């Protein structure tokens, strides 16, 4: 199993962070809100995008989840604003 997690960002989360996806090290499972707290420290853009979890939604391996979901090495985590299609 890869010792990393792949992150996908969409809409204004992507714009603030400055990239659409990135791979970060992860050697132990942790909770999604713990991962987000770590990501916030990566740059001012990450902090600006991810500080308010109430304005964000997330998916792990394409399944929509809450912030207490467990993230494991090898997972794909997407973080985005509430969807506005249709």
């Amino acid at each position: 199993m890869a010792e990393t997690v792949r992150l996908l960002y969409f809409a204004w989360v992507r714009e603030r962070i400055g990239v659409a996806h990135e791979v970060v090290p992860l050697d132990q499972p942790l909770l999604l809100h713990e991962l987000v707290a770590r990501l916030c420290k990566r740059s001012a853009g990450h902090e600006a995008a991810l500080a308010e979890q109430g304005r964000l939604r997330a998916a792990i391996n394409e399944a929509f989840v809450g912030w207490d979901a467990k993230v494991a090495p090898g997972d794909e985590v997407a973080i985005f604003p509430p969807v506005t299609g249709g």
Partner: protein
Amino acid sequence: MFEARISTEPFDIGNEHARLARLGPHVGAIVTFTGQVRDGVLELETWPGAAERRMAALLAEARARWPIAGATIVHRHGRLEAGEPIVLVAVAAAHRAEAFEAAAFLMDWLKTAAPFWKKEADGTWVDAQERDIEAARAWDRR
């Protein structure tokens, strides 16, 4: 025939309708809904792959709830001008009641559960509407 797809190109409503109309003599009703860009220009972002899989899951849920013969969802992404079609939901069934209900269900859930994000011409991202979220949830209480 149950089909969900995303496209940067306009869709042909007549063609999509005709494909459902050809499903067989048991089809007595076809409901089509199209959403189009209101007012200004929109940029629609999506999550390719996940979007089609999520829309296919909504089609499966509609089939489980209503006896429908076929359904098509087409959702566009990219830059769209005012008046351009954004989304098509079309449902074929034996009778109109299930076709209308399944089409409304698909649209309500599409708005709150499929990964699409709208950005206005001035760079403002459109906020999710509480009434849309409530409309989708209401189906769970039926």
